[in-house]
Every structure is written in C-alpha cells, then in structure tokens.
C-alpha cells in the first residue's frame, strides 16, 4: 500500500469515528427512553391483547369462541343448555362446568372475542402468566369465577403486590373482579 492511501485511510477512520462520537455524545445528555421495570412500567394501549377476561355469568356456552379459535385451546363443558335471561342479562339454565383456555397454545389473536353473542370474553391486560408446571398455564375460568375473578392472578403479582405500588393497583382491580377492557376500547367488529 502506498503511503498516501495509507495515511488517507487513517484520516478517514478518525473522521468517521469522530462523526459517530459526536452523535453518541449528543445522546449522553438526553432523557433516557427506557424505564426501570418492574418499579416503573409502561401503560398498555386500550386494545392490548393479553390474557383473556371472562364473564362466566353471561356465557351461554355456545362454543362459538372455541370454534373460531385456530389452535383449539378453549375447552367448554356444560350440564344443560344455557341462555340469556332478558331481565337480568345473566345466563340461566344448565351449569357451566368448565371453561378453560390453554395458554401454552393460545396465539393471542383475538379471534375468539369476535363471534361471542353475549360479548363476555375479552382480551385483558395481563401479559405474563409464568408458572412452575405446564398444567398451571391452563386457566380454569369457570373455577376462578367462583372466587369472583375475571382473569387469573399470576404468581409475580401475588408476590410483589406489597412491594410495588402499581402491582398492588392491578391486584386490587383483579380481586374486585373489574375488567381492564371496556366495550368502548374494543370497537364492535360484527
């Protein structure tokens, strides 16, 4: 290599490093874009598709959601036909024996929420359902409804509710059986 191009090479290198450094240094003094999870957290968009919220008292066990599901991960069992009582808007008739969703299979595609005639299954705001065994990620919604829960309480929430304020807030909401999503968030698609 002749000396001229050798030195040109060095100069080019130093200039491009200097240009890069200039850009990086500019960002040294700017606000950070990351947040310190779990103490801080980012808000979910209203349409966020997380672990389902299910209102068992309005479900008529019609199997529409299970048929729409591409991976067949919704299991429904009932003792006799159910239907909506016009006055109370609650489902009456047979008992809803089982309503389970297998989250090891679920794609979070929201196809199950579209065909529901009573609009009782929604996509919630929980994103994490870690557990110690594979059986634990099958959520029995009919069972947890007996404890007045619309969505399961994951382990991390149980453990951190005293330490982190926003987790406590979420925990209280789920305990009270409130929905994170309202009909206004998810516009009608029918």
């Amino acid at each position: 290599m002749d000396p001229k191009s050798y030195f040109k090479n060095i100069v080019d290198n130093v200039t491009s490093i200097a240009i890069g450094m200039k850009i990086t240094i500019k960002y040294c003094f700017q606000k950070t874009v990351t947040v310190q999870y779990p103490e801080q957290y980012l808000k979910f968009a209203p349409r966020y598709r997380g672990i389902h919220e299910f209102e068992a008292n309005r479900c008529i066990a019609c199997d529409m959601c299970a048929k729409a599901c591409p991976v067949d991960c919704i299991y429904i069992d009932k003792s006799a036909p159910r239907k909506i009582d016009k006055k109370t808007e609650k489902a009456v008739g047979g008992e809803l024996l089982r309503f389970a969703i297998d989250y090891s299979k679920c794609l979070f595609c929201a196809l199950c929420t579209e065909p529901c005639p009573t609009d009782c299954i929604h996509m919630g705001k929980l994103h994490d359902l870690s557990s110690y065994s594979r059986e634990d990620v099958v959520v029995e919604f009919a069972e947890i409804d007996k404890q007045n829960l619309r969505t399961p309480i994951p382990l991390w929430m149980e453990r951190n509710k005293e330490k982190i304020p926003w987790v406590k807030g979420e925990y209280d909401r789920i305990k009270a059986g409130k929905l994170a999503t309202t009909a206004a968030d998810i516009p009608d698609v029918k």
Partner: protein
Amino acid sequence: MQYGLAPGALDENIDVQSEEMLVNMGPQHPSTHGVLRVVLRTDGEMVLEAVPHLGYLHRCKEKIAENLAYYQYIGYTDRLDYLAAMNNNHAWAMAVEKLADIEVPLRAEYIRIIAVELNRIASHLVSFGTYGLDMGAFTPFLYAFREREYILDLFEQLCGARLTLSYINVGGVTWDLPPLFLEKLTEFLDYFEPKIDEYNDLLTFNHIFVKRTANVGVTSKEQCIRYALSGPMIRGSGIPLDLRKDRPYSIYPNLEFDVCVGEGLKGTLGDCWDRYYVKMLEMKQCIRILRQCIKQVPAGPFRAKLPRNMKVPPGEVYAEYENPRGHLGFYIESQGGAVPYRVKIRGPSFVNLAITSELCRNVLLADVPAIIGSIDIVMGEVDR
C-alpha cells in the same frame, strides 16, 4: 454435495496452504440471524465452501393451512416472517380475496398500506441494526430498536399486539384506526425522518463499515436473475424490480414513490454495501408513501361484510406481494368449502438464501457474516 473434507482440494489462488478444516457456523451463532447452520470448509482464514443447512425452525405451516378456515390462518402468517407480520397478513388476505373475489373497501386499503409501510420501516430498521451488530458496531443497533419501539407502540394502539399482529384480515382490517392515530403517525414521521440521516452518518458512511462491506459478496445482474432473487437483493444489483411498481396491487398505483436501486457508490455494483444502502433509501420512500396515505385516507367501512363460515369457490390462485425481503407468494388451491386444499408459500428469504454458497466461495472468514447479514434472512420464513 459432499460435506466431508475434499481430498487434495488445493486452491491455486491461495499462496499459503494449510490443513482444511470444517467449521460449523450456527445454529447458535449470533450472526446467522436465527437458527441457520452454515458448514464452512476453511483453509486458514479462507472459506473454500459454505453450505447452508435449514430446517431447525420447521413448523409445517403449509400443512397447517389445510385444516384451518381462511380467516384463521392469519395468526400463522404472522409467524412466517415475524419481523414483517403485517406484510404477511396482507399477502394472505390478498390471495384469499383474489380467490373468493372479495371487494375490499377503499378505507381498508388505505389502512392496510399505512400498516404495511410502517412495518416495512420496522423491518428495515431491524435489518439495519443487526447488520451493524454483525459488523461490530453496537450503537446503531440500539438506535434502530429505539425507533422501532415507537412503531411497535403505534401497532399496539392499532391492534393490541406488538409482534404477532394479526391485524389485516380477509375482507379488510380487524379494527378501525383508533382516535388520533393519524396525528400520532405524523408526529412519528416528523421525528423519524431526520433520524435516517443520523444513521447514515453513524454507520452507512462510516469508513470501517464501508471497508468491511464494499466489494464484498458482489452479486452480478446475471446471477440475480439466475437465482431468482428479489427485494433489496436484486435492487442492490441495479435491477429495479419492485412488484409495487411493476405489477401494482392494492392502492399503489395512486401513490408516488421511487424504486431505489444500488449504484455501486462505494465499490462494485451489487456488493453488500449496495444491498444495505437500498434499505436505507427505501425507508425514506416508505415515509413518502405514508405521508400521502395520511392525506388521502377516506371515510367509510373498514371491513367488507363476509359470512362467518365463508365458502370459497373451487379454483387456484397465486398472489405475489412485495415483502420487505422480496417477493412473497401464496399459492392456494381450493376445492370449494371453508378450508384450502393446498397452500404453497414462496418465501423471499428462502429463495435469496440459495445464493449463499456461491457468494461465500473463496472469501475471508470474516466476510461470511457480512454476506449472510446482507442477504437479510428471517429463519421463520426460510423454514416455515
């Protein structure tokens, strides 16, 4: 092809001969972008032969399609090219619409184009960031992901998911634009446009980066056509092949944009740098398209009225689509009824990957990540 050491395979071009060695690059190597395994036959620092091995991510996507109704398969198309889920959704929806002769409302078409062009930017950002990473530059990667995060936030508002979007469905889109979405999008574009120049300063024209990528992995025009390459691969070699212009679909005829081609600015036409630079130029064109869409998006329905158990007439269809990585094609054969009889997917990454062996012949070992990175594969789509 033989994978063992070739007996007495001496290469006259290399002056120092040492013992040949087989090196496995991948499936866990960070620069193979997923689970690609490349078997390299090396002689010292020289790579004499490279053979890509696939199949570590095979999930029977085509077979699964035979059991699902057309609208249910959307969730699976997300997971083909998982960096460009919108584009895959759109391609599948287009194929089904062509087959079943469904008219899509104009508003839906505009929302679709907004979504797919945003996703094209997101996909190119990942490609740009990880390519820098392969070349030893860590900072651009963080910058690229910071901007991509804003796009994912927009997607979250649009459809509630960040990666596996399942937004564009047969007959239109699943939800209408949320309130104030177009304003937020404009805000993002204003923020993002100057960032591209910053990336160019930071990485594109960085001397070290240019030295690593220019004149490496040169693909001639003739090779491009022989290997049926598409996307930035073929445009990097100077052939302006872009289905959005050549065989326009959706509302692309109404939109103004340029097809970016490589010009051999830093070295030979069709080298790794050209392929990379085409993507940077394309991001600017995406912004141009998005700005036009924001102005033009009409009011109206966002989804065609379709029966839930949609029956599709017998027939066959092949829909082509310009994915961020090239031509994505869905071939569907229907024998009537609610499920397809056979689905074939033409994945752009899969076809582009075929040229690896030819490009990685008699190159330095350090050039192999540069070449594989510039081909820009997504293994989810290669293996399907």
